[in-house]
């Protein structure tokens, strides 16, 4: 069987499974739509959280980025897992006890203010939407490379899929589809890693095998003039690595589509166990990712570097066609030279350009694994992109229909009308995200990391202080959210390459990926200070803050 047929088979089978689940789990109430009727057991909820959480960025991009960053790549690994500790101990149990459908609803109730709710709803839409556009693009890249169709059609196919099951199923459909998608994406990630691990070291456990391969890789790339793979701060400053890690952690704990997952369990206990299962399932991928990075880089330098270009392997040719892999024979010796610096920089001896985004997809080909493995990886990449996209769309829909339409525009709207608005909002968001996926502004990939900075600077301080400090007032929270998100967005817009103004990093040379940490600190300080200067919250709110400390009587999430 050819590779094309294997891929078609994998994609059709997995998509058929998702659609089947969506039809089986159809819902007709708003509660089922937003929080799956809270009937999801923690084991499956943890799995769905992991599927929801791990996007095209985790599956397709991250290992490639680590392969090029070396030690410093730890910032993605630690940032995107350490955030779950914050989520599990500082937020999840209390938000579940509080029992509202959405994060903006929590903000609105806790801060006794409709303004706060609107501000939060708009932040949620902005953060989720930028994130979803990247997922559509990711799905488009996978489709176009392996089905050899134009990227635009790849995005359209992905859009149609997401629209179908997210709109039909709501949270219940999404939850069980995400369970299936997690199973597929983790299988797809681990099989090639185990295969390559066996090839290189004879050990079937990538986590055990990769340090020794990294030590060998150190020797090879130091010969080529690079810094050691395992040495810290060869690519970024120590300050940047720390700030980016922190921004990703707090952003994880502030992202509405992750937080909302903890509402879908029946009890506070269930919310705690959801965190345990979620990080377990996430760690399976995240502890394998650095191994994939090391193996891929090792295989890359071993199979192509220093070899004649004319004898390049088949996978090299196919990826060259996509423009994501490029060779420029600067010294005209016909040999592929790999050296520090950019290939496009004439001053550098480097003749090879490899887009980090192709590492995971090309890895099985580089290692000569069978075609069916490549087909599974394709299905896994699509599962990662689509499961996250559907979770994000749900947040956009609930923010617009529940937090804005039902609360302000038509408080008397029936369940049917509200669901209609929610589904309409989803369709609109899919269409808009699809357009951005087909015609991406240059920065769609980077924006995934920026979305975390924005979430860290807006939601994280308002939620944590809302739970732990009864004295926090609506004035404080609104000031903090607005100042944090404005500062962070302004810095990203002025500094991030490819977005616009292109200023030098004007705040202590901090990179735009790490600025969310500064925005978050600013937000914390302003929230606390303004809260102390304004009249305290009404007594019933202070009582409410006290009640969420104790799990007893959490009951059902209230449709508010």
């Amino acid at each position, binding site marked *: 069987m050819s590779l094309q047929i294997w891929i078609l088979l994998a994609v059709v089978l997995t998509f058929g499974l998702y659609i089947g689940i969506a039809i089986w789990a159809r819902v007709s109430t708003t509660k089922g739509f937003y929080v799956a009727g809270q009937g999801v057991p923690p084991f499956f909820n943890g799995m769905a959280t992991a599927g929801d959480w791990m996007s095209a960025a985790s599956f397709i991009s991250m290992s490639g980025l*680590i392969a090029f960053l070396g*030690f410093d*790549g*730890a910032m993605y*690994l*630690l940032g995107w*897992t*350490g955030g*779950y*500790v*914050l989520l*599990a*101990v*500082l937020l999840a*149990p209390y938000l579940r006890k509080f029992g509202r459908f959405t994060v903006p609803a929590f903000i609105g109730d806790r801060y006794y203010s409709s303004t706060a709710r609107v501000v939060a709803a708009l932040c949620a839409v902005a953060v989720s939407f930028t994130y979803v556009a990247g997922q559509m693009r990711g799905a488009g890249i996978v489709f176009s490379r392996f089905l050899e169709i134009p990227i635009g059609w790849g995005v359209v196919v992905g859009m149609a899929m997401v629209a179908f099951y997210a709109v039909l199923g709501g949270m219940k459909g999404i939850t069980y589809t995400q369970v299936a998608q997690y199973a597929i994406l983790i299988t797809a990630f681990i099989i090639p890693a185990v295969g390559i691990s066996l090839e290189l070291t004879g050990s079937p456990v990538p*986590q*055990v095998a*990769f*340090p*020794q*391969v*990294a*030590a060998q890789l150190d020797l090879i790339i130091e010969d080529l003039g690079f810094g050691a*793979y*395992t*040495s*810290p701060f060869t690519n970024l400053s*120590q300050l940047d*690595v*720390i700030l980016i*890690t*922190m921004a990703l*952690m707090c952003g994880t704990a502030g992202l509405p589509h992750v937080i909302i997952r903890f509402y879908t369990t029946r*009890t*506070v*206990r269930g919310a*705690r*166990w959801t*965190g*345990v299962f979620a*990080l*377990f399932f996430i*760690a399976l991928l*995240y*502890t394998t990712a*650095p191994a994939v990075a090391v193996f891929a880089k090792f295989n890359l330098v071993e199979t192509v570097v220093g070899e004649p270009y004319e004898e390049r392997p088949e996978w090299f040719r196919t990826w060259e066609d996509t423009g994501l892999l490029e060779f420029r024979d600067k010294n005209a010796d016909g040999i592929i030279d790999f050296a520090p610096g950019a290939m496009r920089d004439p001053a550098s001896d480097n003749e090879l350009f490899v887009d980090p985004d192709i590492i995971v997809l090309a890895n099985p080909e580089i290692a000569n694994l069978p075609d069916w493995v490549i087909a599974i990886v394709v299905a896994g990449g699509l599962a990662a992109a689509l499961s996250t996209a559907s979770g994000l769309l749900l947040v956009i829909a609930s923010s617009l229909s529940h937090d804005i339409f039902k609360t302000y525009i038509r408080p008397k709207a029936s369940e049917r009308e509200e669901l209609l608005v929610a589904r309409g909002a989803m369709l609109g968001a899919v269409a808009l995200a699809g357009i951005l996926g087909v015609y991406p502004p240059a920065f769609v990939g980077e924006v995934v990391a920026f979305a975390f900075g924005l979430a860290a600077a807006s939601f994280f301080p308002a939620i944590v202080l809302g739970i732990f400090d009864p004295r926090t007032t609506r004035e404080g929270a609104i000031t903090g959210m607005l100042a944090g998100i404005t500062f962070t967005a302004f810095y990203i817009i002025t500094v991030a390459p490819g977005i616009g103004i292109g200023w030098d990093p004007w705040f202590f040379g901090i990179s735009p990926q790490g600025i969310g940490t500064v925005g978050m600190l600013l937000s914390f300080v302003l929230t606390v200070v303004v809260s102390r200067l304004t009249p305290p919250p009404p007594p019933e709110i202070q009582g409410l803050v006290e009640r969420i*400390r*104790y*799990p*007893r*009587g*959490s009951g059902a999430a209230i449709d508010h």
Partner: protein
Amino acid sequence: MEPEREALEAYWKKNLTLIVILLAIWFTFGFIVPYFLGPWLNQFTFLGGPLGFWVAQNGSIYVFWILILVYALQMNRLDQRFGVRE
């Protein structure tokens, strides 16, 4: 202070203490060990590679998971002991 109220405050204090301890470990393994001790730890070998590198890219993740597990187990026990369990 009525006894039930006192018990609830004790429950909350225990919860806060646990959170502070767990977050101190989180900060140690999220930042101090990988980014400050990492270069020094790299002189030791673990699984055939530099130790600092392994902690930064694998070891700390295992610690994070243990922290969440400990929190869930401890809090569920506390809930029962203080009778605030659902």
